[in-house]
């Protein structure tokens, strides 16, 4: 067995392991990996996401069990202190010695702290590891408790701006201090930098350029920065991000050749001056440069793995430094030579100060080649431009269309993505070429974007190449004569509307028949809920009839929560509730020890019910006059109301009464996505009705009806469908609108994107709903009427039927509940114990 040791378990060190285990030669290798940090390698590129929702586990590149399953001996929290290159051993800080045949140094870099007096004061941090981030976070929290909240970042480069974003995420007033006259001096020119600075300032961050920091002020903890121009910036903490330095001390002690300004000198095989020792990633000095980007690091890992396996892969002679990223909400990209300016180059720029967009491309004088460029504020052209540059492709006759878009709207400047050369590198992080993406499809191994990702790993790094991968997949499939149609899943080559019509016309009653007649295979978690929703819309059946095809929540008529328990939401139509009913909710919550919270839809959510408790809780709720709130379904949720003319001195109409009527009319109705409504008693709009799928606002002479104000992650305002309606007309239009949406939308498509995709938009919708241009208005009304008439409370159904009640047991062979559920206190209530 050949013994291979890797020192360093960062992104590149991990990539080396990944590349090595994929080789057939790996079975003859014993791999040992040393990492100084307590956890296995994680994604440093997305480190600032650690402050939003992402936990440390989400950043992890592979779990410990991955290393175990490949027999890799991973030793974390272990520092290698010496290398004996003569006897080929390494020794860790505890004095244990390990032999190697081949050694790979992937020790990475450390943050450079400039020699500024006072850098050792409390409140001064660097930004590199999860531990650094934890320290920053806890210091920031302490500051905030003491009423202080200012942070400064030293360094306006790429990483500095990332750190500034982290400061902003922590709720601090954040300032960026840069020595150079512009931000991101290595990637951006003056105009791009000032556009970026404007955008960032607009986000509430302070930018201070041309600032040489003289010393860090404060007695014990930092209080501010004194600059050489005699100005001063008060700050409660400082994050230093002034560049990186290769961690080459080990190599120095091992006598390896080191560059003048640090970094272990390597050749194009990643070999150091000692042929048994390789260096990869940010510690390696290749072409007399240290590369702080992931893509070249990954390429180095692949080269080293290949060399150790006896191959002869070499590093590319020139390293591409192109980058594309999102900084503080702003897209920034630079590629090729972004600055080049001389007599053989033409520069084309586009600037839109109002929108904060700057684009620059550098083109050879003869117009034949793209040499580089910069994009700020809108980097949607990046993939195209990058490919044109990288593959030295021929440019269009008017190269300005590359950044201005062609006037006739004739699509991408690239023409067809299939025109790219086979060798074009589409995913730089994972070095996946166009050839391997298209090949995977042409050879019949893959037939969707998902397949291609699984098979090639493209898009799994930074994800920036996803649009291009998706285009390539679509175009390749088209070129093979396969229709690229939005089908539901591999089991049904139909879209939702087609399936809806078939089920209706052929009067299909159950999932198995639908699958046998129109599909293939045995179904999955995508097509089952789609058909469940279609059956509910056509036959008014509840989720109890075919439990096996219901989505996770519908199956148990409750919302599954983080720890596998459920939440319970009874219907409170229009948000109107009596004190007696409120007390019932309180008593039940107390009895079953449920965490209680008011929802956004004017009702009450009770969390933490175990599966077996659901029927018990619902029995009590139903006895007290409640019914299912369908909070678990893609169904009508609530119709929110303001108090309206009965109490409000401004109210024009009775908004609560109308909201209750509408909610009761549409309760239980399933739809492609969840539905919410709102009724406001006057134009002050206290019910926020225009932020709902349908919104009704009282005006002089009746109700104004707005529709499609639910865009999910991209908020949309509802658009006016009809004005000054009386109650009946308003409900008639609503019936038609809802039924038309239920019939035609794609699965999980909310109303706002549905309207956007509707040819002709709101005017077309008005034609269908108001002027009945399709002649289906009567049909839509009848269908809705039949759903309304056949409404049943599915929880009432469930507790009355002992067969259904069986579903709510945790074990089939024991009465015990799940013993693994545990809670921790949260204010005066409780929450699931964190993972």
């Amino acid at each position, binding site marked *: 067995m050949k013994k291979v040791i890797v020192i360093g378990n960062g992104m590149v060190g991990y990539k080396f392991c990944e590349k090595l285990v994929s080789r057939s030669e790996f079975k003859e290798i014993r791999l040992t990996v040393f990492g100084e940090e307590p956890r296995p390698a994680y994604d440093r590129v997305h480190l600032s996401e650690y402050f939003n929702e992402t936990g440390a586990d989400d950043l992890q590149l592979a779990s410990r069990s991955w290393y175990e399953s490949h027999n890799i001996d991973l030793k974390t929290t272990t520092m290698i202190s010496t290398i004996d290159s003569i006897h080929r051993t390494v020794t860790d800080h505890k004095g244990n010695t390990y032999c190697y045949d081949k050694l790979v140094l992937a020790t990475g870099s450390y943050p450079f702290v400039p020699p500024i007096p006072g850098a050792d004061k409390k409140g001064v941090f660097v930004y590199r590891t999860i531990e650094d981030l934890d320290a920053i976070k806890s210091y920031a929290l302490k500051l905030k408790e003491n009423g202080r909240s200012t942070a400064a970042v030293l360094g306006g480069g790429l990483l500095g701006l990332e750190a500034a974003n982290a400061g902003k995420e922590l709720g601090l007033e954040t300032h960026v201090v840069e020595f150079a006259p512009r931000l991101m001096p290595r990637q951006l020119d003056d105009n791009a930098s000032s556009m970026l600075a404007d955008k960032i300032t607009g986000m509430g961050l302070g930018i201070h350029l041309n600032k040489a920091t003289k010393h860090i002020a404060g007695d014990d903890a930092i209080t501010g920065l004194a600059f050489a121009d005699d100005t001063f910036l008060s700050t409660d903490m400082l994050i230093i991000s002034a560049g990186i330095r290769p961690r080459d001390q080990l190599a120095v002690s091992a006598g390896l050749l080191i560059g003048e300004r640090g970094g272990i000198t390597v050749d194009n095989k990643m070999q150091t001056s000692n042929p048994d020792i390789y260096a990869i990633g940010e510690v390696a000095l290749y072409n007399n440069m240290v590369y702080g980007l992931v893509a070249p690091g990954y390429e180095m890992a692949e080269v080293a793995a290949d060399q150790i396996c006896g191959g002869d892969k070499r590093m590319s002679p020139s390293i591409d430094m192109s980058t594309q990223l999102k900084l503080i909400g702003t897209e920034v990209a630079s590629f090729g030579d972004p600055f080049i300016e001389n007599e053989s180059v033409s520069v084309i720029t586009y600037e839109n100060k109002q929108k904060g967009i700057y684009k620059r491309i550098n083109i050879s004088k003869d117009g034949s080649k793209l040499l580089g460029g910069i994009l700020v504020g809108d980097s949607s052209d990046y993939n195209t431009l990058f490919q044109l540059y990288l593959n030295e492709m021929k440019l269009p006759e008017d190269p300005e269309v590359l950044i201005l878009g062609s006037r006739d709207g004739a699509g991408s400047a690239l023409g067809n993505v299939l025109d790219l050369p086979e060798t074009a590198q589409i995913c730089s992080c994972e070095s996946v070429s166009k050839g391997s993406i298209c090949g995977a499809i042409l050879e019949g191994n893959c037939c969707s974007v998902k397949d291609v990702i*699984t098979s090639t790993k493209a898009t799994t790094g930074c994800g920036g190449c996803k649009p291009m991968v998706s285009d390539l997949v679509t175009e390749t499939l088209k070129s093979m004569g396969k229709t690229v149609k939005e089908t539901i899943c591999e089991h049904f080559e139909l879209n939702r509307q087609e399936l809806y019509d078939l089920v209706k016309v052929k009067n299909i009653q159950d999932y198995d028949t639908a699958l046998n007649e129109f599909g293939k295979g045995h*179904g999955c978690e995508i097509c089952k809920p789609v058909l469940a929703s279609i059956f509910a819309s056509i036959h008014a059946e509840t989720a109890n009839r075919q439990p096996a095809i219901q989505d996770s929540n519908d199956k148990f008529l409750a919302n599954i929560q983080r720890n596998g328990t459920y939440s319970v939401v009874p219907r409170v139509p229009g948000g109107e509730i009596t004190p007696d009913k409120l007390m019932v909710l309180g008593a039940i919550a107390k009895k079953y020890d449920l965490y209680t919270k008011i929802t956004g839809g004017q009702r009450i959510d009770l969390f933490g019910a175990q599966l077996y408790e659901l029927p018990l809780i619902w029995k009590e709720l139903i006895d007290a006059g409640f019914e299912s709130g369908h909070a678990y379904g893609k169904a009508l949720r609530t119709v929110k109301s303001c108090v309206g003319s009965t109490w409000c001195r401004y109210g024009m109409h009775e908004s609560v009464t109308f909201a209750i009527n509408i909610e009761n009319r549409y309760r239980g109705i399933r739809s492609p996505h969840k539905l919410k409504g709102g009724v406001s008693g006057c134009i002050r709009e206290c019910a926020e009705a225009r932020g709902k799928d349908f919104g009704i606002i009282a005006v002089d002479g009746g109700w104004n009806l707005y529709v499609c104000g639910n865009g999910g992650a991209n908020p949309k305002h509802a658009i006016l469908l009809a004005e000054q309606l009386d109650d009946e007309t308003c409900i008639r239009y609503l019936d038609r609108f809802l039924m038309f949406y239920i019939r035609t939308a794609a699965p999980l498509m909310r109303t706002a994107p549905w309207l956007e995709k509707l040819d002709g938009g709101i005017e077309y919708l008005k034609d269908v709903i108001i002027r009945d241009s399709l002649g289906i208005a009567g049909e839509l009304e009848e269908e809705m009427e039949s759903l309304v008439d056949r409404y049943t409370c599915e929880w009432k159904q469930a507790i009355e039927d002992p067969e259904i009640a069986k579903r709510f047991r945790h*074990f089939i062979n024991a009465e015990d509940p799940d013993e693994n559920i545990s809670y921790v206190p949260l204010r005066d209530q409780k929450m699931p114990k964190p993972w």
Partner: protein
Amino acid sequence: MQELLKKYNSVKTFEVKNWFRAGTIDQFPSDSGACVKYNDKQIAVFNFTRTNTWYACQNLCPHRLEMVLSRGMTGDLNDIPKIACPLHKKTFSLIDGKSLGGDDLSISVYPVKIEDENVYIGFTD
């Protein structure tokens, strides 16, 4: 919580030392799952009525370590029978327990046999 995962190790039919009777077939809902308690283990058992086949795996989803897989949806990916976790829809092959979503998560699977309307799960302990 990682300790929980260590309790579960895949069992192959030839390794079975103990066939545990989990119940009768009519106790198990069609084309879905149910959870069986075996000592301190929770095992999800799936009744694929359409193909008249049965599978068993750990009830613990390895992604977020909750006892939920028996409440997930069954199905197939190119004829590989699979289970989708009800929490985040991670899917796993019920043949070898491997993730079908391209990550390196996996679950332990256990053999199931049906004799005289009884459902047995195979264990080595």
